[in-house]
């Protein structure tokens, strides 16, 4: 048993940043164990993304190819990866923590009697794996203690991709053909579609005032709307506000909503669960107003005001109006 497998997610040949971060996490493990990193691509036409992956400093690329893998299904991916893992016998399997991986990796690990360490933000000596607890308020340090492969999925943005150290020569590309039958795939996925037509493009907004659970009631939204108007900012929200129907879904920032990177992101009453942070931590300046000094939003904020938003927000709106005169 040896080697580190990194599953690279591709959609229509395109590889998202989080997959390169998973490769970086695999390299971090390799630095500890000295074992080679092998990238794995799953699909029916993976030739061109495989060539792209092969330019990275890794030992090998395996294309797991089958016509039944053209569209993602949990059944197809689990069967294919199970066969690959039994064939390769790796010590570690690293995956990007995407919605797709969340859908199949826990079952894949369980099928092999293993447990996925999900949503990992750091890898320490041992190795030990850090993941967040209590919505990001605490960290948990996890250890794997079985003789089988250790499954790890890594959080978006947690591992830095070193573009500089490109490979000297492209890695070898091999193909693995799993045995799959149509009858083994129990669900039928439809084509992805967009939700409602987007009328707000938060992605290009320069200034954003964003509101979270701390606002308590729908009626209180006028407070933050007034602040946004005074600033000339777009109004956005964290998921619970949109779940309650207080603001339309298209104003949601986070992993399930829009990703934004404005000059100013002013978070009001948002505790900063990771699902929200991944959608806004690229902002140039983050300001947080929250009553809880331990709220994880302060881990990414440049400026913070610890206090009651119902007092701070009106005072801030007034101060901005005065400054604008």
């Amino acid at each position: 048993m040896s080697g580190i497998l990194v599953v690279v997610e591709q959609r229509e040949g395109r590889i998202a940043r989080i997959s390169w971060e998973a490769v970086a996490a695999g390299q971090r493990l390799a630095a500890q164990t000295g074992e080679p990193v092998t990238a794995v691509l799953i699909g029916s036409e993976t030739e061109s993304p495989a060539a792209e992956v092969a330019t990275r400093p890794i030992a090998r690329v395996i294309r797991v190819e089958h016509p039944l893998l053209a569209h993602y299904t949990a059944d197809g991916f689990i069967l294919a990866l199970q066969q690959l893992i039994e064939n390769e016998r790796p010590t570690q399997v690293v995956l990007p923590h995407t919605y797709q991986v969340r859908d199949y990796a826990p079952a894949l690990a369980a099928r092999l009697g293993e447990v996925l360490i999900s949503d990992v933000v750091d890898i320490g000596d041992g190795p030990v794996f850090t993941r967040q607890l209590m919505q990001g308020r605490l960290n948990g340090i996890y250890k794997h203690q079985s003789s089988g492969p250790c499954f790890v999925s890594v959080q978006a943005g947690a591992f830095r991709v070193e573009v500089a150290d490109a490979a000297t020569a492209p890695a070898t590309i091999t193909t693995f053909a799993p045995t799959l039958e149509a009858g083994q795939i129990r669900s039928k996925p439809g084509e992805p579609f967009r939700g409602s037509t987007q009328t707000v493009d938060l992605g290009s907004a320069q200034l954003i005032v964003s509101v979270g659970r701390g606002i308590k009631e729908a009626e209180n939204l006028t407070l933050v709307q007034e602040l946004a108007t005074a600033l000339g900012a777009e109004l956005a929200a964290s998921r619970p506000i949109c779940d309650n129907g207080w603001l339309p879904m298209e104003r949601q920032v986070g992993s399930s909503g829009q990703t934004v990177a404005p000059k100013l992101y002013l978070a009001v009453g948002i505790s900063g669960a990771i699902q929200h942070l991944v959608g806004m931590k690229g902002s140039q300046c983050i300001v947080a107003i929250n009553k809880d000094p331990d709220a994880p939003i302060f881990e990414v904020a440049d400026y913070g005001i610890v206090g009651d938003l119902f007092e701070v927000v009106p005072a801030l709106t007034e101060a901005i109006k005065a400054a604008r005169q």
Partner: protein
Amino acid sequence: MKIIVAIKQVPDRDAQFRIDAAGKWIDETDLQFALNESDAYALEEALQLKEKHGGEVIVLSAGPERIGQTIREALAKGADRAINIACDDLGTRDALGVARLLAAAAKQESPDLVLTGLQSEDLGLGQTGVIVAELLGLPHATLILHVEKTETGLIVKRELEEGWFQEIEMPTPAVLTIQSGGNKLRYATLMGIKKAKTKEVRQLSAAELGAEAAPVVVLDRVTLPHKQKSTQILPGSPKEAAAALVEKLKFEVRVL
């Protein structure tokens, strides 16, 4: 349709968390506990399916004695009966260990559908439902916002990243993990609270489910997170802090 909803009791999200003396978990004294939010949406989806198609909603939960309260609340909202797996070592079980308990209890009921929230607010593993499906040998789908019953099974609406969705056709029995926001949550009525007291809660123990196994993954210790940025906290009264922030927005961030 016979629907099992697996729910978890979690610490109230506004609680101040302290690491316990051993550094292995949080100090649970003085903590308030509540129903995990996405599990509340799973329960709501189950209740709506029952209202449309008839059948039965069974709440399933594992944990220490205090989970009885959360189970009663689910019964008050309209679940028909419950299964309470007494288990004081939930914290030292890994996701597979917890899923084994739930799957063993669910199997005895031969449900048409097992629903649960997509992840818990305390551990946030987001795996339990998927592993339960694997252990029961059932198809599954995750991050589901809407469930429609068809002649042969289900059509479910799955959330993808960045505002995309997908419909999936699948047979029953099946396991679904429910995303928040698909429905509006109901409150328990006074009548519901009264009725809940007479509803059946079957008590099971982890030992009698025979689902013991050494954990594969262990939580070794709990620590405080590192700050990614050094936040400059602006002190003073709301008015003073607001004035200080306006200065920063004007001269440092330059957006005013």
